[in-house]
């Protein structure tokens, strides 16, 4: 690990950048407390400094508070509507969506949804700010603010609002709200065009400020969007280039790399380095001629290393050398910040050109935490306390202001925190740096700093359409919340509380990390650990993991039946080939016979009573050990999933993680349902005693699409509750099942408890028609489930029907109304429809988009599908792998061939030539339908059918979807919570996902399973699942009560 104080040694940055580079990545998820111990000395002020900072910061805040006109309207808004108020959140949601909603009905409904629930009144009275009041009511009518009557001020806020709405009429309110949102946009965005921005920025230029212009917008999803953003940046550079020179430094342009490339992600590094660098060089050439400095904006933590590589490639490019105008943003909340700065300094030392570096605290804090928890990563890339971020900021500042760095990096300190600014001034022994602030925020603070020092201040100013405003606003608000900026704090807060040095604040904590934010592995508390996986976008995690996986790229696995741990007399071994390359052998299999199935059932029956006697804690421990073993063998299991099942790298990791979660979850729950004897008094008054017991022998028939997770999910549930099992995995993925069996035996499972037979229908039929079977757990197609149901019912010589738990397919829809964010919708459609080549029960099959935004959504989808990459699933760059086999491929291709005349293909991702032969790829396809009647049976592949609907047809649409009879997953995209709740309530499905993708249910978090044609229940990974593998058996009769 990097020694933090070593960076202050002048010799440190004289090392080659390549020597410092390896120190960056390991800090990604470094132990937080350990790393903060390193950083704290760099942030520590001397006693004299601490006193001076406190005195000066206190004076500054007091001056600003004393100045009535100092509170800028945006500051007032943020102060009034902080994120810890319901109203703040609602206002943000409204502003985020309202301007972009094209249809009046949806806009009105959204206003009703957001304004009807909160206590707006309190805010109206509390703030004198014009903007706050205008935003509160959004009632700027023909230039006048609607004032409330005295009765209203006493009344309940929502009643007052309702009266107002009734009086004015909803269309008027809607127009007024939109007007108010535009005013907000006007405050946050310097101009909708560069010309407007330059004009509006002139008064600040006159005060001595300079600018960094940012072209507002989401990350590009399509080439067209990327080209549009590139053109916008080019125009901005031209416009800034024409800026007349003043005494203040020249304005610059900030560039967001994810806006310039539709696949700006580590997985597509080769493409990014070639295509994005080319596009950036075009901008740089012109910028250099016009002397317009460019700053590369910060992105999410996953992209940091990629951004640095792009930066290095550009910085060292012959056409850039000798310029000194290419800068970078570094986020202090990142654990890697100091190492990144050290690396940049060494790069500048080697290259000789100054690098402007904007140090910010960071704006994606909550998203980073969430993502790490979802992906089960080893730790967080960001600090979990705001005081820690502040400490990191000051430690980075100490380095940036140190003498060896001077002339190499040009520090630009972005902050709205009075204490931070004063601390930096105290720390600096020179003035070779500048301050930065956001447009619309911290005016009063920075005005005074600017007036009292010789340090330049640059305003980071968004330029662009108001409808792009709010994602940006959201980030700013979150940043405020996360970092407790100056403006966020209540005006009544004692100044002394605002000027505590973060070094003191953090040092006083019991632990340096935040104990309230558990590590990803600990989010389920004491019940069980969460499964973990590596981050494939972080070199220090990805490289060793990929190397470990690659060691299994030539391994040949074998699988055969296992009865009492023995391989029966087998037929000939048959080779198994990868679905993505039919010449790539994965191993070999010996298929089982119906006789093997009978032998396995007999063996399972023989041992069942003994297994049931094993204490439930002991059984649960076996599965905990199994979970640990799978984590240990992650690389091998991933390689196996890739090679036998054609799963992509991330899909394979997720597969193993789900299997691990099943083992932990059922292990924990089994102990809960192991109840004491139960007494029931029947209707005749007899007391009957019951004991929960395993049902007996279970047959578990698992599918190839989740060859490890569902295989283990089924058998672990049956075994942990004391049943014995005969498992029959899908023939296509027998090697994976056999390897799991070996690991289970290694974990301590008696070989007589679990038996494996390999084969297709004939073997399955032998199992489901046998009288020993007490239950069948099946995941697969609806027709096969029906077939099993019949077979079980037809068995002779039984008097109790066995239990069938069937999880089958779905015609899963996603309903998107016009309040949804199209970019988010399309990202979720790509994942839901095409991840795993659409071979998930939960996969999206039918995308229903309100017609008002359909064109934009479909255009984006078309463009984004063109960026998908099909290929070898072992490669990180591959988005979509093959379908499982030729039978599946032929069926799916037939679907495309047989599309009716009234359908048409909107978009199709081509299959690369190398994979058109000797492999089973199917092109991801988006198919437009005219009506839902055109949607037939489930097609288990990468096809998404598209349908539009009118806003007033929503009830009928839901009814039609319900009428299909399936009921597995449903996606809803709507910013209108009332609409989302209505759809959710009316749809008959097992799992609903609102404003996210609809795949990847997590064990114990999103119990999974459908209704109707989609399954019998209970839900796998849910609290009721294990009980189904047991029954209450009468163990005694007492007296009459």
């Amino acid at each position, binding site marked *: 690990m990097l020694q933090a104080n070593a960076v202050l040694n002048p010799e440190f940055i004289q090392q080659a950048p390549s020597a410092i580079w390896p120190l960056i990545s390991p800090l990604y998820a470094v132990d937080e407390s350990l790393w903060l111990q390193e950083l704290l000395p760099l942030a520590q002020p001397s006693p004299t400094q601490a006193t001076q900072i406190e005195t000066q910061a206190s004076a500054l805040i007091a001056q600003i508070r004393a100045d009535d006109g100092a509170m800028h309207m945006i500051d007032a808004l943020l102060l009034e509507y902080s994120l810890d108020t319901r109203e703040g959140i609602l206002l943000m949601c409204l502003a985020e969506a309202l301007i972009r909603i094209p249809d009046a009905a949806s806009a009105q409904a959204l206003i009703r949804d957001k304004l009807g629930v909160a206590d707006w009144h309190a805010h109206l009275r509390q703030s004198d700010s014009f903007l706050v009041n205008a935003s509160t009511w959004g009632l700027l009518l023909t230039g006048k603010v609607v004032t409330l009557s005295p009765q209203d001020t006493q009344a309940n806020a929502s009643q007052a609002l309702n009266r107002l709405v009734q009086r004015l009429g909803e269309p008027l309110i809607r127009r007024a709200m939109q007007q108010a949102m535009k005013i907000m946009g006007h405050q946050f965005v310097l101009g909708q065009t560069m010309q407007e921005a330059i004009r509006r920025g002139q008064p600040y230029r006159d005060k001595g400020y300079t600018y960094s212009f940012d072209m507002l917008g989401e990350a590009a999803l399509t080439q067209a969007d990327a080209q549009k953003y590139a053109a916008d940046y080019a125009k901005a550079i031209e416009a800034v280039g024409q800026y007349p020179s003043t005494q203040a430094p020249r304005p610059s342009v900030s560039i967001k790399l994810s806006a310039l490339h539709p696949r700006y992600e580590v997985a597509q590094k080769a493409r990014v380095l070639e295509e994005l660098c080319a596009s950036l060089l075009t901008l740089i050439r012109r910028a250099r001629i016009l002397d317009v400095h460019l700053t590369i904006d910060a992105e999410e933590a996953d992209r940091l290393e990629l951004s640095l590589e792009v930066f290095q490639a550009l910085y060292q490019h012959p056409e850039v050398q000798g310029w000194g105008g290419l800068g970078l943003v570094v986020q202090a909340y990142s654990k890697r910040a100091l190492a990144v700065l050290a690396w940049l300094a060494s790069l500048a030392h080697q290259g000789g050109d100054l690098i402007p570096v904007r140090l910010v605290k960071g704006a994606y804090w909550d998203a980073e935490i969430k993502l790490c928890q979802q992906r089960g990563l080893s730790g967080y890339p960001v600090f979990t306390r705001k005081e820690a971020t502040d400490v990191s900021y000051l430690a980075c500042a100490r380095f940036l202001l140190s003498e060896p760095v001077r002339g190499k990096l040009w520090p630009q300190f972005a902050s709205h925190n009075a204490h931070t600014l004063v601390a930096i001034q105290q720390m600096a022994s020179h003035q070779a740096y500048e301050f930065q602030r956001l447009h619309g925020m911290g005016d009063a603070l920075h005005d005074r700093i600017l007036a009292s020092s010789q340090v330049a201040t640059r305003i980071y100013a968004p330029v662009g359409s108001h409808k792009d405003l709010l994602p940006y606003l959201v980030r700013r608000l979150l940043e405020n919340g996360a970092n407790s900026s100056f403006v966020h704090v209540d005006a009544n807060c004692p100044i002394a509380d605002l000027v505590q040095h973060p070094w003191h604040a953090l040092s006083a904590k019991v632990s340096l990390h935040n104990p309230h934010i558990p590590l990803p592995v600990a989010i389920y508390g004491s019940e069980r650990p969460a499964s973990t996986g590596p981050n494939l976008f972080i070199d220090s995690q990805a490289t060793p993991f990929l190397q470990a996986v690659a060691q299994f790229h030539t391994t040949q696995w074998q699988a055969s039946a296992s009865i009492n741990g023995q391989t029966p007399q087998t037929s000939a071994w048959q080779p198994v080939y990868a679905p993505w390359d039919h010449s790539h052998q994965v191993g070999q299999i010996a298929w089982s016979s119906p006789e093997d199935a009978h032998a396995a059932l007999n063996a399972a029956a023989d041992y069942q009573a003994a297994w049931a006697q094993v204490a439930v804690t002991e059984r649960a421990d076996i599965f905990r050990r199994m979970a640990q073993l799978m984590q240990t063998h992650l690389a091998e299991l991933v390689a196996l999933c890739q090679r036998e099942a054609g799963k992509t790298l991330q899909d394979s990791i997720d597969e193993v993680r789900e299997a691990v979660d099943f083992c932990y979850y059922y292990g924990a729950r089994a102990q809960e349902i192991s109840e004491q004897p139960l007494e029931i008094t029947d209707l005749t008054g007899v007391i009957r005693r019951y004991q929960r017991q395993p049902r007996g022998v279970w047959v578990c028939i698992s599918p190839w699409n989740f060859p490890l997770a569902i295989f283990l999910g089924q058998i672990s549930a049956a075994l942990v509750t004391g049943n014995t099992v005969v498992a029959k995995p899908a023939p296509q993925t027998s090697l994976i099942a056999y390897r799991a069996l070996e690991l289970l035996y290694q974990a301590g499972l008696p070989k007589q408890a679990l038996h494996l037979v390999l084969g297709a229908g004939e073997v399955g039929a032998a199992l489901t028609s046998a009288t020993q079977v007490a239950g069948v757990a099946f995941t697969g197609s609806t027709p096969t489930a029906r077939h099993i149901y019949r077979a*079980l019912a037809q068995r002779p010589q039984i*008097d109790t029907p066995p239990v069938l738990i069937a999880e089958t397919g779905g015609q899963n829809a996603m309903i998107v109304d016009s309040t949804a964010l199209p970019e988010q919708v399309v990202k979720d459609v790509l994942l839901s429809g095409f991840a795993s080549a659409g071979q998930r029960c939960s996969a999206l099959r039918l995308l229903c988009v309100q017609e008002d935004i359909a064109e934009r959504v479909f255009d984006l989808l078309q463009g984004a599908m063109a960026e998908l990459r099909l290929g070898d699933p072992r490669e990180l760059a591959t988005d979509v792998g093959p379908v499982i086999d030729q039978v599946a491929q032929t069926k799916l291709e037939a679907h495309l061939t047989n599309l009716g005349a009234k359908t048409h293909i909107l978009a199709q991702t081509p299959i690369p030539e190398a994979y058109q032969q000797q492999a089973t790829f199917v092109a991801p396809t988006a198919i437009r339908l005219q009506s839902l009647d055109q949607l037939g049976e489930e097609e288990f592949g990468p096809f998404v059918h598209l349908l539009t609907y009118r806003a007033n047809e929503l009830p009928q649409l839901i009814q039609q979807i319900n009428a299909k009879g399936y009921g597995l997953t449903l996606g809803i995209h709507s910013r209108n919570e009332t609409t989302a709740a209505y759809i959710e309530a009316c749809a008959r499905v097992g799992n609903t996902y609102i404003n996210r993708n609809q795949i990847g249910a997590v064990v114990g978090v999103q119990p999974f399973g459908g209704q*109707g044609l989609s399954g019998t229940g209970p839900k796998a990974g849910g609290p009721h699942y294990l009980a189904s593998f047991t029954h209450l058996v009468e163990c005694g009769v007492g007296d009459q009560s």
Partner: protein
Amino acid sequence: MTVLASQVSDWQHLSFQARRHILDQALQSAALKDAVFYAQVHRLWTHFNQVSATWDQTLVLPGPTGESNELYLTARGLSFIYAEKNAAESLILGQIFASLLCGNSVLCCLPEHKELLQQVEQVLTQAKLPAGVFTPAQVEDLAQALQRPELRLMQAVLTEPTQVIPWCQRLAQGTQVLVPLIYEAYPDGRTLLMPDYLLKLVTERTRTINTTAVGGNATLLELGSRHD
């Protein structure tokens, strides 16, 4: 035998508490209260209410921050209820009221208990059960009813355990949804009194909301600044 979709949907969307209230009123009617089997029915009803007492609450599941995950129980849909000739009337009523309490709509075929069927229909109507939620069916309709695509359950009161398998076989011939047989074959009602029985009449639903999409992650921000 028409089941009115809109009323059925309304019934499904009522809370357990609201349905309990309506069904309670039906059970309080003099016609049932005076019946000899009322004590047993009351006993079953009390049991069902105890089991389902918390079912209006959603179960909040743990998970990553910025997302809410809930599990709740809801009606399965249409249930076909049948009773054999000598089935105890209390058990028949138990099956009917349990199913209705869970929000299911009921097609009820009681060829040997016509008077009871009439009585039940009457008290449910008087208690303002929405039209179409409880529908009497004739035995001639049986085959057709078992083929209905919206059928989700079959509940039976049998007098002989040997009848279970033939009914299962009959249901297995269906071409639509896998319809489970939920049966009571003991005259003492022990199956209906099992703690798991009522769960078989409902289905589980999971609702996941990306809460950050509608307004940031206030909870996490609060955790970020909470005092130790």
